[in-house]
């Protein structure tokens, strides 16, 4: 899922300091799962904002709505009837949803209510870790399903480097060495000979290096 963190409330208040009515818009997908921008967080933020505005002696109408996905036009259409009642939107979706809401409603200011962080997994309740960087050319088949692009600080394709000590990365003792994980995993799978094979130079044009990316599937287009 896309993992996001709630923005400090002071930052959101600063963003909307000129606004007299705003819609706090949540998203039912990834940000709900990582407890940053679902229906509950919408309620909490809206309640907190109302209390802040009251103390600032500002009359601000704060509305709440959570839609299925902010990255799909069909769900964004659901707010068309109500959006004109508000001067601005604070979106608790990931960066994709925030931008897509803004694209869909070009005259409406849309402010971010979260910081979108990474694509990751929940290690336990309240702990998320990055697992994928969407490089566009997956090499997990040869690395025992441990991604060195996302999990190695240097994104090494043939590792580990000299900074790996006792299974930890030199950048922090809390960061596991991705290549140690790859070796351990290949060993457990009985495929350690694959580690000996050098990875060829990766085509990074499918990563961000090739600029903003787009996928077009003609078989699905209408």
């Amino acid at each position, binding site marked *: 899922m896309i993992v996001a963190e709630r923005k*400090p*409330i002071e930052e959101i208040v600063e963003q909307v300091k000129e606004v007299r009515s705003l819609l706090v818009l949540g998203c039912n997908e990834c940000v709900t799962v990582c407890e940053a921008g679902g229906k*509950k967080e919408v309620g909490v933020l809206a*309640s907190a904002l109302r*209390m802040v505005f009251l*103390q600032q002696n500002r009359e601000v109408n704060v509305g709440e709505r959570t839609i299925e996905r902010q990255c799909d036009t069909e769900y964004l259409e659901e707010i068309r009837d109500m959006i004109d009642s508000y001067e601005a939107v604070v979106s608790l979706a990931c960066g994709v949803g925030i931008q897509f809401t803004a694209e869909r409603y070009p005259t409406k200011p849309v402010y971010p209510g979260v910081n979108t962080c990474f694509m990751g997994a929940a290690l336990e309740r309240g702990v998320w870790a990055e697992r994928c960087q969407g490089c566009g050319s997956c090499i997990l088949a040869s690395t025992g399903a441990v991604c060195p692009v996302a999990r190695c600080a240097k994104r090494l394709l043939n590792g580990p480097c000299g900074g790996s000590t006792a299974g930890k990365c030199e950048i922090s003792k809390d960061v596991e060495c991705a290549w140690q994980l790859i070796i351990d995993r290949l060993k457990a799978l009985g495929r350690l000979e694959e580690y000996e094979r050098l990875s060829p130079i990766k085509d990074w044009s499918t990563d961000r290096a090739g600029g903003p990316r787009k996928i077009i599937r003609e078989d699905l287009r209408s």
Partner: protein
Amino acid sequence: MRLGYPSSIRIIRVPCTGKVDVLHILRCFERGADGVTVVGCREGDCHYQTGNFRAKKRVEQAQQILERIGIGAGRVRMCNLSSSDAPLFVRFAQEMHAAVLSAGPNPIRTARRERRAGTQVPGVELPA
């Protein structure tokens, strides 16, 4: 036992403190409550295993939010007791009452009243 506790306190019954959400606590303050105490079973004695631990976390979350928005973290607290421990409940109730008296009225209630009246309303207005 017929023990008394401050009459300013209103009891809202929930099936388990695990039911209490941050939003419930915030809504209390939004509607003008001066303080909120979440009273759960003793730690380790939850009938639903972890309800009171969940509540404890949520109280901490609510405290963080309330501190940031100028209401004050001290207005919400969690306490744990056995359902038969009336004297302890009374003690917690009195402590919370005293804490709220010293913190003064909920700034939201004051702000709302000021807005309605167009004047400033000073003073602590809690029942004795």
